[in-house]
């Protein structure tokens, strides 16, 4: 990441405004936010989101998602500015997601960001998506220095802050937890609207039998691909049972009737127990009692409940937000970008690229003291 030559902190009388543009996955989120460097007070002025929802049984493909973002970019952006009542001239900077994420959607939004930057003559700030989630979570919940569990469709990381970096203590060794849940929803042909994880959660609330799934924790890391494969095998057994029963057959003696509800219940109980376990390990390791859950999976109530019990056991508490801030949005990009901007950071137009691979610990968190 390139840094402007003048790394002088920027001060202002009164609040600074920023526009945030996010489109690393299937959500196009644009929002306006203000932050007052003197009082450290943040105000959300608008938070508009438009989601690309693919039909049941399918996932969102980069090509279609990018097209969705291009189609709706102008209207969502206009709505965000209108809701906020802020004119482009008032903006200090235009913040966009530099990565990580899917290439084609990222590119669409980066192109949009560049166009706005040239059109309105406002500087650009490229933002790490994960850092955006963390900063938004900290501001919304007021947690000052928590261990962060960042769980979404593309990322699963346990993060703790040290010496101006968000350091990754544990992460998935293969697929993200949200990806595991989304793909299992696809196996069961559960609708993707509003999002697959929500529908899995609703089904899980009706389940109660814990089926046998593997449990894969390695130190502070975990793995989900084997669990997905095992869950798919159970789902195939269930479909076979459906077929058998529909044909007038009967189950073998002692065979459990597998239901979608129990499958979702089992999947949730297993993967969330793993996530809580690795988070607890990180908390024990760094000696922290605060835990912040961010990312799309973070708005799952069962995960929040389990995390809350664990934190209470350690004499601490869990900080979580609702879908407005958990799920990808523009204001989190605006916030992380504006905080960087205030420390003197800027992304020049020729450097305003995006990247699918951008580790959380690559970002220098200049706005936090050691």
């Amino acid at each position: 990441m390139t840094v402007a030559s003048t790394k002088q902190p920027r001060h202002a009388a009164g609040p600074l405004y920023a526009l945030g543009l996010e489109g690393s996955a299937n959500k196009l989120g644009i929002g306006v936010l203000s932050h007052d460097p003197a009082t450290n007070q943040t105000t959300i002025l608008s938070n508009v989101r438009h989601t690309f929802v693919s039909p049941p049984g399918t996932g969102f493909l980069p090509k279609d998602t990018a097209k969705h973002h291009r189609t709706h970019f102008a209207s969502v952006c206009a709505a965000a500015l209108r809701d906020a009542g802020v004119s482009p001239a008032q903006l200090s900077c235009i913040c966009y997601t530099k990565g990580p994420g899917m290439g084609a959607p990222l590119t669409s939004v980066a192109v949009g960001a560049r166009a706005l930057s040239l059109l309105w003559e406002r500087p650009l700030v490229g933002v790490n998506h994960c850092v955006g989630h963390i900063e938004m979570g900290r501001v919304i919940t007021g947690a000052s220095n928590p261990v962060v569990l960042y769980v979404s469709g593309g990322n699963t990381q346990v993060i703790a802050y040290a010496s101006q970096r968000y350091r990754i203590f544990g992460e998935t060794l293969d697929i993200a937890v949200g990806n595991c849940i989304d793909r299992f929803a696809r196996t069961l042909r559960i609708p993707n609207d509003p999002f697959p994880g929500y529908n899995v959660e609703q089904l899980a609330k009706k389940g109660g039998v814990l089926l046998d799934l593997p449990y894969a924790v390695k130190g502070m890391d975990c793995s989900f691909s084997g669990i997905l494969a095992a869950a798919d095998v159970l789902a195939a057994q269930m479909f076979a049972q459906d077929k058998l029963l529909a044909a007038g057959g009967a189950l073998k003696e002692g065979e459990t009737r597998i239901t979608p509800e129990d499958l979702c219940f089992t999947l949730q109980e297993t993967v969330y127990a793993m996530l809580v376990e690795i988070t607890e390990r990180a908390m024990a390791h760094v000696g922290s009692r605060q835990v912040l859950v961010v990312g799309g999976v973070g708005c799952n109530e069962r995960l929040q409940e389990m995390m809350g019990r664990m934190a209470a056991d350690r004499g601490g508490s869990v900080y979580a937000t609702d879908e407005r801030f958990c799920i990808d949005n523009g204001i989190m990009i605006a916030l992380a970008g504006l905080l960087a901007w205030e420390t003197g950071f800027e992304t020049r137009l020729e450097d305003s690229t995006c990247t699918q691979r951008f580790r959380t610990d690559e970002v220098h968190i200049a706005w936090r003291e050691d």
Partner: protein
Amino acid sequence: MTAAATTTAPQPIPAPVPDPSPPEPSIHDFPLPSALLHPSSEPPTLITQGAEGRVYRTTWVDAGRECALKHRPAKPYRHPVLDARLTRHRILSEARILQKCRREGVAVPALYGVDEAAGLLALEWIPGAPVRVCVNGWIARRKERRRRLADGAVGDESKAQEGQDNSEPAVVAEVTADEEGADVLMDLLRRMGEAVGRLHKSGVVHGDLTTSNLMLRPWEKGKAPSNGHAETEQAAEESLDGEIVIIDFGLASQGTADEDRAVDLYVLERAFGSTHPKAEGLFPVVLDGYRGTFKGAPVVLKKLEDVRMRGRKRSMLG
């Protein structure tokens, strides 16, 4: 294709408030496992609340034998069936692996007793401090030393300004291999690598190697290798002298796969970097120590490079 749009009314969010409960790991009250309520046992002290469970310092059978009692309480957040399955499996596996290590001569705590239904494991008490504390202590002493040097320079009026400017970054700079005093730290790191190597040689993979799970046990009187090691306790701490004892086998497994061994090293490497960012650059010394411990070690280290590359979303640069 459907769409969902959300808007929120502007509302100021106050600045984040500092953590009301400081992260100081002061231990609050838990119900004690029944083994510790027995009138004949010594009053136990809670040593740590790890992720896996709680460790109490108490005595075993007679008052003179110190013991670490590891209690894995039920995790209320976990489904009871899953929890019972995991606890039982982990306790028994930990006990078996400790026995295996003992047999093979790897430095681990002795196993005194197991009660897998109650979630209890009684282990030998290891004196000394975790390597994490030792390394951080070394780094803190180094910082202090450098600060004193810098203050000395400030005392000289003519160099006051200059001295402060030049020394400040040096105080917080990363530890390098050739700097003064780094040899004791490097020696400790080498012994860490050797300890892990011996563990792997015996057919055990730890699963959660961190500098918190490696203890530095001071040499017992008369047992120290006879090549001029420190005598007093203070000197022992300063010199980072002693034997590395590996603890907490809660996630260990038996196996000799190079892949698993490499992941073990990778976990240690990452934990080391996150826990001791200042000394991150010295980690290759650990691997050097590991290399010489058994025949298959070079293959494992080769595999470690693959594991590193595979780490998710690694930067594509370099």
